[in-house]
């Protein structure tokens, strides 16, 4: 049992007394004090009142808006999308920050800075670019690309490692992406000959644009490390790159 400087029971003792977690000697001493002290009895009643109010709070609170569309969009986004999927609807409205069918439409519509809007516009373009690349790969798969040419090394491989000071919490995440990207790129590079020069050029051009967007998001995040929207933007760029590389690598392995 602890008391305050003025001799009354401490808030800790009153709380433990109310919770019934004081040991027998302490509880006895507290009870004796409470019996003689109206001030501490009132204080104990206040503690009990807060506890009772907390226990009586509604178990359920309705969100301001229906969150299901955002949940569903995120679930669908994480599923494998067929090659050559239409991209128009996915690109959405870059001006308002809404990506149709995306969790972003719920999270990041309001309160965007101009820079964030620019980045979002870039992200919308990325979707189009990446989808174009995937469509090119799909055409190759249907037999349009029969030449066994070896294209130039894809540029931009180091775009994600430019020396900017990212938040510590994000470095591990980025390292994971870098490892995955390196593995996928090695796999793709080993099989480049299976793709036509035109397809290789499309994929490389898409990767360059994605890398540019990643580099811009990294720089912005380094300058504003507490900005959640930028974290998500950078993550989206990496996701896009991994997705493109993975599907390109999977495709070449099936040719």
């Amino acid at each position: 049992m602890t008391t305050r400087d003025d001799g009354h029971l401490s808030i800790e003792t009153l709380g433990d007394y109310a919770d019934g977690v004081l040991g027998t000697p302490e509880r006895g001493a507290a009870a004796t004090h409470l019996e003689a002290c109206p001030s501490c009895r009132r204080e104990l009643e206040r503690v009990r009142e807060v506890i009772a109010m907390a226990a009586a709070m509604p178990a359920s609170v309705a969100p301001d808006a229906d969150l299901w569309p955002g949940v569903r969009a995120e679930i669908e986004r994480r599923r494998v999308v067929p090659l050559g999927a239409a991209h128009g609807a996915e690109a959405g409205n870059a001006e308002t920050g809404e990506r149709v069918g995306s969790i972003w439409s719920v999270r990041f519509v309001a309160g965007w800075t101009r820079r964030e809007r620019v980045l979002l516009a870039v992200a919308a373009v990325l979707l189009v670019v990446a989808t174009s690349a995937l469509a090119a790969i799909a055409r190759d798969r249907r037999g349009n690309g029969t030449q066994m040419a070896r294209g130039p090394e894809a540029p931009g491989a180091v775009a994600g490692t430019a020396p900017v000071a990212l938040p510590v919490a994000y470095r591990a995440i980025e390292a994971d992406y870098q490892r995955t990207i390196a593995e996928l790129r090695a796999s793709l590079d080993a099989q480049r000959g299976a793709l036509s020069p035109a397809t290789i050029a499309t994929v490389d051009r898409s990767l360059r644009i994605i890398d540019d967007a990643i580099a811009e998001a990294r720089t912005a995040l380094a300058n504003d490390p507490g900005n959640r929207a930028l974290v998500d933007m950078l993550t989206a760029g990496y996701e896009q790159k991994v997705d493109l590389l993975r599907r390109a690598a999977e495709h070449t392995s099936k040719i």
Partner: protein
Amino acid sequence: MPATVTRRPAPPFVSETTRQDGPATPADDESGLVDRARRGDVDAFEGLYRRHVGRVFAICLRMSGDRIRAAELTQDTFVRLWERLESFRGESALSSWIHRMAVNVVLAAARSDNRRTARVGLAEDDRDGEDGGPWEGMVRPESTDERIDLEAAIAALPPGARRVFVLHDIEGYRHEEIARITGNAEGTLRAQLHRARKLLMEALTR
């Protein structure tokens, strides 16, 4: 003079049965929804979402103290539930499993936020006691006609104290359980709980 506490009528967004929490029907029982959702049926998963979103949002709102953040955390919780549904073995009630998932999502986000801002929750809470009184550096709960809304008062608590208060006094977790899921010592948690109660007592008597 003893404190007189009058609770403000529940705000519109609070209800015992929320708008989105639909009643169970025999043809649409929960175990059936779980089975279908496990097989990839998103519509069945929506049924689970409708049943549990109010409970999940409540825990996210009270632990985060921010409605927009709570909406994000609620979405994250259900996306994670979708991904982990296969691991639900039915050893506990689905509602308990979902509830624990929501708590874990909120705590993980809090840890991430702390890392991102290079602050530790306890250090942040240590502002209590500085010049300006116990609410120094925090948003004081608004008062209308001397009636204080407990939801607003909880939202205004320091983050660490708020989370412990919500888990212990509202959700009924024991200290050892909270210690296990937060990684904090029980003594630290008790101190935060007492601090939260003290701040709420002061808020409710203003």
